């Protein structure tokens, strides 16, 4: 299956700052998604990253807080803006659809974010 890498793997940030997380897939994929997993919780979908157009956000998530880019079929970024301690979480990039992923939705290694 395809392989996803994420950068950074972890970061500790100050309140009020922003962090951009990068997601790179080693092959072209149809769909890319961003999830958040808060401590002790399951995965919550933030948005679907659409290539060449604005991301599709789930209820409770807005573009001003979580701007997303997807300039091509292998790369996406998620920015967590104006961070607060409530944003401390694991952020996961996910993808499916392509020659090497078939119907399996697979995940990047995640970014562990701590906001002080």
């Amino acid at each position, binding site marked *: 299956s395809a392989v996803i890498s994420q950068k950074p793997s972890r970061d500790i940030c100050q309140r009020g700052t922003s962090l951009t997380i990068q997601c790179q897939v080693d092959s072209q994929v149809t769909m890319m998604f961003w999830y958040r997993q808060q401590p002790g919780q*399951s995965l919550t979908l933030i948005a679907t990253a659409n290539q060449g157009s604005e991301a599709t956000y789930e209820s409770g998530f807005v573009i001003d807080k979580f701007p997303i880019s997807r300039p091509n079929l292998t790369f996406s970024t998620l920015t967590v803006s104006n961070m607060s301690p409530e944003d401390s979480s694991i952020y996961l990039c996910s993808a499916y659809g392509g020659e090497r992923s078939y119907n399996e*939705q697979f*995940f*990047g290694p995640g970014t562990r974010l701590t906001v002080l």
Partner: protein
Amino acid sequence: EDKVVQSPLSLVVHEGDTVTLNCSYEVTNFRSLLWYKQEKKAPTFLFMLTSSGIEKKSGRLSSILDKKELFSILNITATQTGDSAVYLCAVSPRGNTPLVFGKGTRLSVIA
């Protein structure tokens, strides 16, 4: 609204025990059901099930789907401490839509 419910939410067993994890779902336009194991950060893929009654097996892990009753089970035999993890069940609706996840079952295997 699509929904996935897993039970139990947590489970503690001794090494060598056999465990069964449950997943029930309600989803429009079902395509497949997936099981993942999550130890630290990223979920790792275990199984994808699309047809009823066909067991998928990998070592000590096996899983089966019942599309009539809308549930799946994940069995782990002869558990080891390395099986300790959160096991996530997810359903994939048809089309280019993302997975719908359950809350997971936290399994702890003690020596």
